[in-house]
């Protein structure tokens, strides 16, 4: 695999391969020395055109745990603010000969375009409202650890599906792993035709009892001013996930950052059935596995490189 641009591009076997690799990195993470030399001497550039805490920090840390040199560029304070085009920015950063570019961009297809402009492997860390493949992989990883398999598992994805790249990538990933997915929210926030992606659609929480996993999405305050919902109060009254609406056997997930009291109650966030903290720690090992897969896992390794470029057994400490 040369790039990770979407979940859509991955087969079930490829997803499982990355997750198996992540499992072995989880073992490394339990050691005193958490660093492996796999990417020593190679450079990973992370380029974020949107604000991010979780994704950018976990990609940076993942690259560092693999011993790569990491360059982080944020749009704010860079020449992007001076009007440099994406194509020119990529040409500039490619001059450092990076092994990988991790990019988050506000527009769909940006990562795919970048892949056409650079020799580096490209990782899509979120492109507009299109895809967020590393999030979907870490969510599948989290569930797989809990449930063993997603085969036949009923998952409800609840909230602002229309504006959510997480919803799209997770819907594809969950169904590809055998789960039965229902998306739920007010009709204004469910994209027309989404059922053709292979999910059920509900406009009420009435049937939520059937779900084994409840996945809530972030509800942005500005959606109210755009008339997608009349008020956050009315939205919360109909669609907020709280401990009353959950039964104790259901697992609760959220990609973060949460708006406590809007899409999810504070009590639910902190409840024992919440996997939110596990999702964050899964993010690190899954992103290590993604970088490993692209840069050391097969056809991604350029030939004729020195020692540093060779895949190293991940059990060997640095």
């Amino acid at each position, binding site marked *: 695999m040369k790039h990770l641009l979407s979940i859509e591009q991955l087969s079930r076997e490829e997803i499982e391969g990355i997750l198996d690799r992540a499992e072995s990195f989880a073992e490394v993470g339990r050691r005193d020395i958490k660093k492996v030399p796999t990417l020593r001497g190679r450079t990973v550039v992370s380029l974020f055109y949107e604000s991010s805490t979780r994704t950018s920090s976990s990609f940076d840390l993942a690259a560092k745990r693999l011993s790569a040199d990491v360059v982080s560029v944020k749009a704010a304070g860079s020449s992007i603010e001076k009007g440099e*085009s*994406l*194509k020119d920015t990529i040409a500039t950063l490619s001059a450092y000969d990076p092994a990988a570019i991790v990019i988050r*961009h506000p*527009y*769909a*297809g*940006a990562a*795919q*375009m970048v892949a056409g402009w650079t020799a580096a492997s490209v990782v899509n860390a979120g*492109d*507009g*409202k*299109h*895809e967020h493949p590393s999030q979907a992989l870490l969510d599948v990883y989290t569930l797989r650890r809990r449930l063993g398999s997603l085969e036949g598992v009923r998952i409800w994805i609840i909230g602002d599906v229309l504006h*959510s*790249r997480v919803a*799209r990538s997770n819907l594809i990933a969950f169904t590809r792993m055998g789960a039965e997915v229902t998306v739920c929210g007010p009709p204004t926030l469910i*994209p*027309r*035709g*989404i059922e*053709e*992606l292979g999910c059920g659609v509900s406009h009420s929480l009435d049937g939520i009892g059937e779900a084994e996993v409840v996945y809530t999405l972030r509800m942005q305050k500005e959606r109210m001013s755009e008339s997608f919902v009349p008020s956050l109060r009315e939205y919360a009254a109909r669609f907020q996930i709280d401990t009353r609406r959950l039964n104790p056997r259901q697992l609760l997930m959220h990609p973060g950052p949460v708006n406590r009291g809007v899409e999810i109650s504070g009590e639910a966030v902190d409840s024992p059935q919440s996997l939110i903290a596990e999702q964050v720690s899964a993010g690190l090992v899954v992103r290590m596995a993604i970088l490993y897969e692209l840069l050391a896992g097969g056809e991604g390794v350029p030939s004729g490189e020195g020692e540093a470029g060779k895949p190293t057994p991940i059990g060997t400490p640095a």
Partner: protein
Amino acid sequence: MSLTELLDVRPGESAHLILRRATVLDPVAGIDSVHDVVIRDGEIAALAAPGEADGDGAEVVEAEGLHAFPAFFDPHVHLRTPGQEHKEDMETGTRAAAAGGYCGIIAMANTSPPVSTAADVSALREQARAGASVPVGFLATVSKDMEGRELTEMVELREAGALGFSDDGLPIVDAGLMRRALQYQHLCGGNIALHEEDPALSRDGVMHEGPVSAGLGLAGIPSVSESTMVARDAALAGHESARIHVQHLSAAESVEVVRVAKAAGVRISAEASPHHLCLADEAVRDLDPQRAKMNPPLREERDRQALIEGLRDGTVECIATDHAPHQPEEKDVPFEQAAMGVTGLETAFAALHTELVLPGVIDLALLVERMAGGAEPFDLARPSLAPGSEANVVLCDLGAEWTVGEDGYESRSANSWCAGQTLTGRVLMTVAAGQVAFRLRSFSLGVAA
């Protein structure tokens, strides 16, 4: 009436040509047989029996196996002049038209600044007389500077030679202003060409709203954004006994509205573009703005089929390219940021021949008829091969395969929706208003007999 009575072109030498043994097809004139086409003094002088026309000093083109059609007419072209000559100008745009087999085009008024005054129209006409390879007609805007608030001086614009009116690029949102323009048409004449879209429904959409946009996470432009405005304006035109031309139909519902309005006696004409006839929104999946980003957007397969049915039954009387040149920096960006629009003049016939005629979806005669159907809605004579007509002829090799963009473009811009595709059918030569406007470089011509 000849095209040059209302359109402007660079004056040149009248062609004296014989297209020897050409297969002549003009479905409207009822011609479908092999002839020597004699072109002299700006006219189709004769359709002689094959091999019989007397050379008489004419240049003889050995056209056996080649097809001669009435040259095409495009009522919807963006020449980007004045103001955006880095994308297209009078010379490059009309050369592209000639290379595509067109004997006439109509230039849109959404230039920079827009064509809103008599002086703007006069200046453009003068430029066309200096540098246009094919006759060009100019529309003026309906509203001043396309702001959608006040009417332009429509009578004066017509007197200066504006062929008609359009705010194309933008809809006329205010129904009251639209109604005034239709009322005023009784005074000034000239058709009003309409870009139909309700911005309150299309909002920040970048593609058709449907399962494909749902999968891509792109904001959608629903079909009703177009069809409700077509319905509004058909009702207004009927109410005012006025005349409208609906541009670039894209949605099945809009085709149906036009069909019903025509049946009710409303004076309404409509066009469809080659990209809407050849592609559906599935083409957006690759997120390639060059191929698939335009407004109106590529819609679903059922919409494409409805447009084709509209071509067949005459609801859609003409094919118009909506040739919209853009520079690479406006297309080499993520899909949502990219400029809307694709070029089409140089590829329209070949693309439609390849995608619709060769697979048997429509027959060649229908394509030929619709490619020249854009003249009549703007009070121009339909190009014809009947003897005595002004010579507007395109000579095509229907078996020739070529790859779009391989030899560059006549247009200044390269944002063709079918770049890199191999098409079958190629324009070899175009005669526009009696002059040879184009001949393919690699096409070797016969010598004087």
